[in-house]
């Protein structure tokens, strides 16, 4: 009779009780898997951003525009490689609630800077550069509304007025679809020509929302950023230059301390199962006091019994936790589809999974520790006397 067989039979001696424990552990790991993935996506979504990319915004706040002339001045700063710029359009489709991140960009330079993040078919690329009335639609948006190349779409702005007819609508033709080249890239956007935007809006002419640039290498980032901000010091529009990573992180931080909330919830879920499972394990081993005494009488060494009790609790944690993570993986996949790219890179990643398995083993060891210790120290005479 192998140890494993004994362990298995002991675990399923009371099927209902074991099933209930597994259910509790399962639920906790589903919660861990889903929330852990969301947290991971938030923390590492910006990590995939190229290190040598800087964002220049107005110092007052990033939604205050800057003069268009800044683009060329920044391009002339030493250490700056590629420069591009964009403006926020406040776009929506049909209903103001259908907001789409819509940016007016300079096609050529924008696609040069974001060459590694976006995959665009060469034909669409050409159309977008040469036809002023076209737009490039991110995969998530195209899927949501069923748009394809050649479709003419009336896009509304909740900020700007179209000079042509005094409406808030711009008719744009889909040049093609932009796909994510990296898993963590967000494709919930629309890009259209800045030149078209600049000439057709009624106010705010010759301004840009923000300027993105590449430095020669990440090591000169701080120097370049300081040089740019010095250039515009004491002007009517001072600038704030920071890495795109820092910019993204600061923006997420504005939503609130997501990591703390997630840690608290997952902590509560784990504390719950720790209480329930720990207690039940103590109960289960106490029921077996006499059997353990018999095993010891038969010559089973204490450490072997100790190992069996711990093995039982670790096995229980794995039997509940592994299906929990599997279901979490499924839920995360569904969620990633549901939020259509709002949380880029949302998936049950390897680090989250590995940490989860680590937590299972830890849970098993902690909950099994007291009963295993009791079994180890069990005195045969008193145990058999305890009738």
């Amino acid at each position, binding site marked *: 009779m192998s140890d494993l067989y004994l362990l298995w039979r002991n675990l399923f001696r009371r099927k209902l009780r074991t099933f209930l424990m597994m259910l509790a552990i399962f*639920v906790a790991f589903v*919660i861990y898997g889903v929330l852990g993935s969301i947290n991971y996506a938030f923390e590492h979504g910006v990590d995939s951003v190229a290190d040598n990319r800087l964002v220049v915004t107005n110092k007052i*706040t990033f939604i205050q525009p800057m003069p268009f002339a800044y683009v060329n001045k920044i391009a002339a700063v030493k250490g700056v490689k590629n420069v591009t710029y964009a403006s926020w359009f406040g776009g929506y489709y049909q209903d103001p609630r259908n907001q789409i991140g819509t940016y007016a960009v300079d096609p050529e330079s924008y696609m040069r800077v974001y060459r590694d993040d976006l995959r665009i078919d060469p034909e669409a690329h050409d159309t977008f550069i040469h036809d002023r009335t076209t737009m490039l639609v991110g995969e998530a948006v195209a899927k949501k509304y069923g748009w394809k190349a050649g479709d003419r779409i009336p896009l509304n702005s909740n900020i700007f007025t179209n000079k042509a007819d005094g409406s808030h609508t711009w008719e744009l033709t889909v040049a093609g679809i932009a796909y994510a080249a990296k898993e963590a890239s967000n494709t919930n956007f629309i890009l259209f020509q800045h030149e078209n935007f600049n000439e057709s809006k009624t106010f705010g002419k010759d301004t840009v929302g923000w300027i993105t640039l590449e430095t020669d290498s990440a090591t000169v980032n701080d120097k370049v950023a300081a040089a740019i901000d010095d250039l515009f010091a004491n002007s009517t529009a001072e600038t704030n230059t920071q890495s795109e990573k820092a910019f993204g992180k600061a923006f997420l*931080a504005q939503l609130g301390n997501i990591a703390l909330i997630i840690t608290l*919830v997952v902590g509560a879920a784990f504390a*719950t199962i720790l209480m*329930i499972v720990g207690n039940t394990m103590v109960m289960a081993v106490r029921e077996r006091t006499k059997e353990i005494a018999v095993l010891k009488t038969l010559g089973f060494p204490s450490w072997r019994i100790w190992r069996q009790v711990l093995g039982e609790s670790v096995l229980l944690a794995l039997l509940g936790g592994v299906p929990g993570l599997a279901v979490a993986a499924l839920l995360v996949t569904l969620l990633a589809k549901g939020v259509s790219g709002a949380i880029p890179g949302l998936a049950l990643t390897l680090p989250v999974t590995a940490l989860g398995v680590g937590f299972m083993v830890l849970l098993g060891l902690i909950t099994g520790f007291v009963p295993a210790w009791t079994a180890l120290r069990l005195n045969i005479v008193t145990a058999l006397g305890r009738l």
Partner: protein
Amino acid sequence: MRVFNEIAVVTVICIKSIPQRFWASLSTVVAVGLVVTVLLAFLAMAAGFQQTLRGTGAKDMAILMRAGAQAELNSGVSRDQARLIEEAPGVLKGPDGKPLVSPELYVIVDAVKKSALPDDGNMKKAPKSNVTLRGLGPAGIAVRPGLKIVEGRRFTPGTNELMVGRALQKDFVGMNLGDTVKLGNASWVVVGVFELDGSVFESELWADTPVVQDLFHRQNVFQSIRARLTSPDALLALKDYAANDPQLKLDVTTEADYYAQQASRTSDLIQKLGWPLAIAMAFGALAGALNTMYSSVAARAQEIATLRCIGFSGTSSFLGTLAESLVLSLAGGILGALVTWAAFDGLTASTLSGTTFSQIVFTFRLTPAVALQGVILALIVGFVGGFFPAWRAARIPIVEAYGTP
């Protein structure tokens, strides 16, 4: 009457036996308590956020923005439009006979949250948050009768003086009376701190319109017009007036409706996160409760059999066991509510509002109605967790119960 006596006796026996299974019972109480704490923390967050926005804006205050703008940030109205509104019907006049109309500028500026300040106190490195800077017209204060200046004074028109909302002052760095605040390349001095019924306005900075227009290069452009109405019913007259004038392509709503709509979006989202989490966790706690109650029934098997022998009904065993489970979960529910109250009630937090695109400071509020939802969830767990074990208790075959040692 005998039935009731029986039930009472068995219930007392069950509840008095709880200490015999102290650790198992405690684990149920704590597990249920944790579930309730998680639920209530989310609900208290939603309630606090909602209360802040619901408390903003009176029913007799109209807010006018460019048609389709949805939010002040996206809107733009001209000085001429503001003048036309001053002559509109339904607008209340102040004691000096001037209409209570305030064209307001709405811009977003950067500030640093106290919680975001790095350990070395270097403000330059701290991540910045969006904050609303509102430029007020001459009637800006008169249109808001609830305003209380709690420290300092009002700003003097034409100067770089700021008034700071109470909530903003508490949550952000360097916003105290006398502090110098740098916005863009202009320095401002905080001369007053105000309260306004715990509303969103307390998360804002206020200054004189012409000075703000100058700094942000927005001469003669405003984001919204606030107009105090003679009564809430006067909104219709104002709407008609705006609809009939081609120069006034404006959306007219009451301020109360404008903020209530924003409130429902975010607090819905928070509740949509909190409930599924709590329900999932409740299943975990339910497994614990079932386990505890089954072992309670198993431990009392002979006792229950004895009662049945001397003529007690199965119903009394059923109800007694159910009562034990409900008592444990109720204790858990109350524990959870108390923990939430101690740890979260009154806690200040702030988040980026999707509509205003700036920080709204709010306070967690554990209202009795919210706490009740937590206790109800606990009782549901207790009921389900007690029902099946109680069912077993009521049907224990007497001979078999004595057969097991």
